[in-house]
């Protein structure tokens, strides 16, 4: 099956092309084309994964370009990580497309939406199958384009337009880092192939300083795509896109691309302690930073967006503390429960047509399916015992502890508490308390939307059992199989109290949220006063957008203004001078043609006279 794995990204591409060429005439039928082709991709991915469980890594390449002595190849590779990512991406994409049938009902540009989804899925699947960095970069950028199109789907709204542009530009900043990293890597090793690069790294061919620099540059690419601090500001704004898009792109797939990149290049990062430190600290800081913002946001999707940033920070923290398995494991469980949360949030928005959680409440009895599913996702992300998030978060804490970085470990613990708190704040504000909306207005979403949520809900609950300290660490062992020396063991060992601490912390967060937002035993201002400085800082997201606006944006604008003057006056002046002089010459020439025959005759006569004079003086010889 793995020989035919190249078909996996081709199917969504076919969807895209068919829907694009049909020019929107297919309307809602376009959705079925998208779903069927994505289903085909998913089936193939599962088959490839099942085969990869026992078979060795499959890799095939063909020569694409040969420049001098350098061969550029194109092809695909199915190793453990790739196979896992293929299944996650195609699966979430499939579910999101089914869900969108209900959510996007009545949308004018229905088939365009599915065309974009197909395009994005194609790019993302191509990204995770790439066997070398050039191909990866290629699909990396396509993913960016797909995200741009989907965020800006409601392009007639100014906010959506701005958000799409912001996402594109912010990730582009990271992409530049990635590109420079790839070029430097090629300069040092003369190859874009992963295997050759890792061999060169292990052989110690590359100087230590270069490895650190390259690893950090590549990490900058991951920072942009995965919304890590300081390039995170695009992700909350990207919530302007349709909610299914948020579930697909900004929860499960595209933002995971950065984590995937670091995981793929893991041997390179391992070779440099400094780079690992950078990854871990960035991840840890982003995790607590975004979690603290999420505690005060009022827009349901924004809370989830900051939660995503925070969880991605967790994954980076895990990778940075040599917890390869922990990072990838959390990537997988997060894809399930965060996609579920976004779809459930979409279902809530679909039911009551608002995103402001202050205006929600008391929906538990009204949304009989959405409520429990949302609760399942919330419990999973909070690290409630025996749910998927519990195991993966545990793995990360163990990895951080085993790495001996106790500062980052405590950061992660605090973040866990904040995560449980803000997620249950969100949950209670939506579902508990007094109903603030008329009963007849609230309608449960159709089955076509509930079904994908149900599937994700089951996975969010049981998805963690492939890697537990009790029933075996199947995923971890499989992921590092044949590569233990580099990737580390399949499971991080740690003291038992860490798990107990994680449980207590999660329960404490849930309890606090319960007391404040559900029971209202504690006033909302119990922790932080509403008009205090801290609250205002958090509500304004640490003023990061404003800081960027007043420093970088204004600086760039200033440079732009200066350059526009250069363009207008210096370059424009030059051009005007040239055109002006040519025009002047032409005017003089046209004056000569006056239409006065007598003038012509006079000039002809004078010319003859001059010739005669010259003739007389020289005697007819030119000297």
């Amino acid at each position, binding site marked *: 099956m793995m020989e035919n794995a190249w078909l996996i990204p081709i199917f969504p591409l076919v969807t895209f092309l068919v829907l694009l060429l049909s020019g929107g005439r297919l309307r809602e039928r376009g959705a079925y084309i998208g779903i069927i082709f994505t289903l085909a991709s998913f089936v193939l991915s599962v088959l490839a994964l099942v085969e990869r469980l026992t078979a060795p890594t499959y890799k095939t390449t063909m020569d694409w370009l040969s420049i001098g002595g350098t061969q550029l190849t194109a092809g695909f590779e199915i190793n453990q990580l790739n196979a896992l990512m293929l299944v996650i991406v195609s699966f979430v994409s499939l579910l999101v497309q089914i869900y969108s049938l209900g959510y996007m009902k009545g949308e004018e540009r229905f088939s365009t939406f599915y065309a974009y989804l197909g395009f994005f899925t194609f790019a993302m699947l191509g990204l995770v199958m790439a066997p070398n960095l050039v191909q990866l970069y290629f699909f990396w950028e396509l993913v960016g384009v797909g995200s741009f199109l989907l965020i800006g789907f409601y392009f007639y709204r100014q906010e959506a337009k701005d958000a799409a542009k912001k996402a594109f530009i912010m990730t582009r900043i990271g992409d530049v880092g990635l590109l420079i990293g790839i070029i430097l890597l090629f300069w040092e090793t003369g190859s874009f192939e992963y295997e050759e690069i890792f061999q060169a790294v292990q052989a110690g061919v590359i100087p230590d300083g270069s490895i650190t620099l390259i690893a950090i540059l590549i990490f900058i690419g991951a920072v942009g795509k995965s919304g890590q601090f300081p390039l995170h500001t695009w992700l909350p704004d990207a919530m302007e896109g349709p909610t299914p898009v948020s579930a697909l792109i900004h929860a499960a797939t595209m933002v995971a691309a950065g984590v995937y990149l670091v995981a793929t290049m893991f041997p390179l990062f391992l070779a440099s302690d400094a780079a690992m430190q950078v990854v871990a600290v960035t991840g840890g800081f982003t995790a607590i930073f975004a979690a603290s913002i999420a505690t005060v946001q009022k827009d349901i999707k924004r809370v989830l967006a900051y939660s995503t940033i925070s969880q991605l920070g967790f994954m980076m923290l895990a990778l940075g503390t040599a917890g390869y398995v922990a990072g990838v494991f959390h990537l997988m469980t997060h894809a399930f429960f965060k996609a579920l949360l976004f779809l459930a949030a979409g279902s809530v928005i679909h039911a009551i047509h608002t995103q402001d959680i202050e205006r929600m409440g008391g929906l538990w009895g009204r949304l009989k399916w959405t409520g429990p599913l949302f609760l399942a996702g919330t419990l999973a992300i909070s690290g409630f015992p025996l749910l998927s998030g519990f195991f993966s978060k545990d793995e990360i804490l163990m990895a951080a502890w085993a790495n001996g970085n106790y500062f980052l470990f405590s950061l992660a613990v605090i973040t866990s508490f904040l995560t449980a708190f803000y997620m249950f704040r969100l949950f209670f504000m939506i579902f508990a308390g007094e109903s603030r909306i008329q009963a007849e207005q609230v309608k449960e979403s159709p089955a076509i939307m509930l079904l994908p949520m149900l599937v994700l809900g089951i996975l969010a609950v049981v998805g963690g059992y492939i890697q537990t300290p009790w029933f075996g660490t199947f995923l971890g062992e499989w992921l590092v199989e044949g590569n233990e020396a580099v990737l580390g063991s399949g499971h991080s060992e740690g003291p038992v109290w860490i798990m107990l601490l994680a449980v207590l912390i999660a329960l404490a967060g849930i309890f606090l949220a319960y007391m404040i937002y559900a029971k209202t035993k504690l006033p909302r201002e119990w922790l932080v006063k509403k008009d205090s400085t801290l609250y205002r800082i958090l509500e304004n997201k640490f003023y990061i957008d404003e800081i960027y606006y007043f420093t970088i944006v204004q600086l760039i604008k200033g440079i732009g203004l200066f350059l526009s003057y250069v363009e207008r006056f210096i370059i424009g002046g030059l051009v005007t001078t040239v055109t002006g002089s040519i025009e002047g010459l032409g005017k003089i020439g046209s004056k000569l*043609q*006056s*239409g*006065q*025959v*007598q003038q012509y*005759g*006079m000039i002809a*006569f004078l010319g003859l006279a001059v010739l005669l004079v010259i003739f007389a003086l020289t005697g007819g010889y030119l000297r």
Partner: protein
Amino acid sequence: MTGVPLSAYLVLALVLFCIGLYGALTKRNAVIVLISIELMLNAANINLVAFSKFGVTPSITGQVFSLFTITIAAAEAAVGLAILMSLYRNRKTVNVDEMDIMKH
């Protein structure tokens, strides 16, 4: 007859030609311009006749050619005057300065 040298004829022709040229280039009235052109033609005729008598190989051919030239000049004057007439009918002017419609 023999007392008059060739150079006298040539000078007469030169003077006539220059007067004609001056008139053709400076006069405003189109009729005068046509007359001036006739003067220049006749200056050429004088040259032809003079050379047929005093040239290196005197021959009657020069005089014959001058007769042809006079004939052609008459035809040309007729055509010129005809053009001038139709121009005058259309433009109500014989001023050469105003006849510049062919400049573009």
